[in-house]
């Protein structure tokens, strides 16, 4: 488990701010202990200090992963956020999109959300803002990028995409071998 270099921490935080905004502070500075980010083989893990101490007792070669994998750095040093980060991101996300039950399946298969599948969207969502996708019963099912502002969504035709798919809960089944 390596400490992230300054460059990489910066890239990671910038990506996180795209989805949660100012609340990234709450991820680091938690009431139940300090949490930190560690890197192993280009994958970023979010672990508490206590768990990290315990993980360091294991030989590095034998350790597969510790904590939650937030995502990985690609070969060209860009950070890709995985679905495994959803539980930590969804409570802090300022911009949310609710999906109708009829369009849930489509999103879970990896397609984008179109206007006819949109239930609700938070007010004043800027264009290309990272959003968390929830079902109508407020269960987070993934995240995406809003392709239009809220005002534009109102005037869009029913087949226009309004949220680009980034990650969904169905990936646990589709790409289970690449998620860790």
């Amino acid at each position, binding site marked *: 488990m390596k*400490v992230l*270099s*300054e460059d990489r*921490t*910066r890239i990671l*935080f*910038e990506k996180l*701010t795209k989805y949660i905004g*100012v609340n*990234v*502070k709450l991820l*680091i*500075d938690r009431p139940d202990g*300090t949490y*930190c*980010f560690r890197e192993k083989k280009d994958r970023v893990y979010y672990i508490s*200090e206590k768990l990290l101490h315990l993980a360091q007792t294991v030989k590095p070669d034998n350790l597969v992963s510790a904590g939650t994998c937030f995502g990985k750095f690609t*070969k*060209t*040093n860009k950070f890709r956020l995985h679905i495994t980060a959803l539980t930590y991101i969804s409570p802090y996300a300022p911009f*949310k999109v*609710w999906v109708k039950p009829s369009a849930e399946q489509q999103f879970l298969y990896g397609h984008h959300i179109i206007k006819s599948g*949109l*239930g*609700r*969207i*938070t*007010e*004043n969502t*800027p*264009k290309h803002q990272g959003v968390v996708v929830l079902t109508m019963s407020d269960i987070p099912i993934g995240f995406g990028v809003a392709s239009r*502002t*809220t*005002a*534009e969504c*109102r005037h869009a035709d029913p087949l226009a995409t309004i949220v680009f798919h980034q990650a969904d809960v169905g990936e646990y089944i589709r790409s289970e071998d690449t998620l860790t």
Partner: protein
Amino acid sequence: MDIVNEILEREQKKSDKYKPITVEKHLELEFDLGSLLASDTNDLDIKTLKTNKDSYLLALTRDNAQLLLNKVWELPTERIEEAIVVRLPQPTTILPRAKPVPVPKPLTKWQEFAKAKGINKKKKDKLQWDEQLQKWVPLYGFKKTAAEKEKNWLIEVPQNLDPMTDMYEKKAGEKSEKVAKNELQRLKNLARAKKVKIPRVGLPVTSDKASATQLSTAASVAKASTASLGKFQDKLPKEKEARGKGVHELIPGKERKRKAPIPTPAAEKEYNLNLLDNILSKRPKIDMDKAVAKSINEEEVKRSHEKKNMKPGLGKRKTQGKGNATNFSAKKPKAGKGKRAPNKKSTGRKRR
């Protein structure tokens, strides 16, 4: 009588010097007066050709020239400044091309893109109405810089930059960068048209041998062109990585060999929070797009509200959504029922 005879004899002798104007030929010649061409298809007399070639050919040429000139004289003559002139008609013989057919130039990258997208060039006038200056400003050429200077008499420093930055210098720098980029692209287009191969990074090889830096750059770029970006490629014991503009981006994954000391939890937390503060401060506080979108949104809400007021009794009242969500299937409840200042008791007139 004698004098008349003498004159006639003199004329006779004179005309005997010259050969006759009329020429007898078996076949008529073909004339192209526009290019002063006469084609004689009569057979040559082989006997005379063999015996006295030169004189025969000379006589033949003279006869043909005579016929051509006869034809030329048949055209209408004009007199321009004491010279008799004949206007030749258009030539009828088709001459072959002197040079090969021109090859169409290959389109530049932008031209191809514009063709694919269907973008056409829009003609711009030289003078353009400027709202700020309230006058006609030239877009290029004479007095363009003066107008621009007048317009940019002041440039504000935006929030996220150091307040001491020189904005004029910055603008000039950006312009020179754009010009350099344009020039580079023009040269690339030219190279593509002439099918000259140019390396991805660095200057192309001019002499027959490449320099050491050029070779090392080429080797580094080639090494990093594998699926693992050169991580598992063997290296010579003393081989050094190439350094230069643009090479660094093509060789990603450069890891620092020195190991940073693992920070204590408290120090790490502080470091992370500081870094976060740094990132958040760099984001613009007043996001223009967001502000515009918000104002548009407010206008629309107001408009829909007015519409609803105009049509009474339409639409059922559904429960309002949680928080700030726009519920696309619910009606917005009426606002304005609360008091402005609930604790204010005085109801008197406002004194000015």
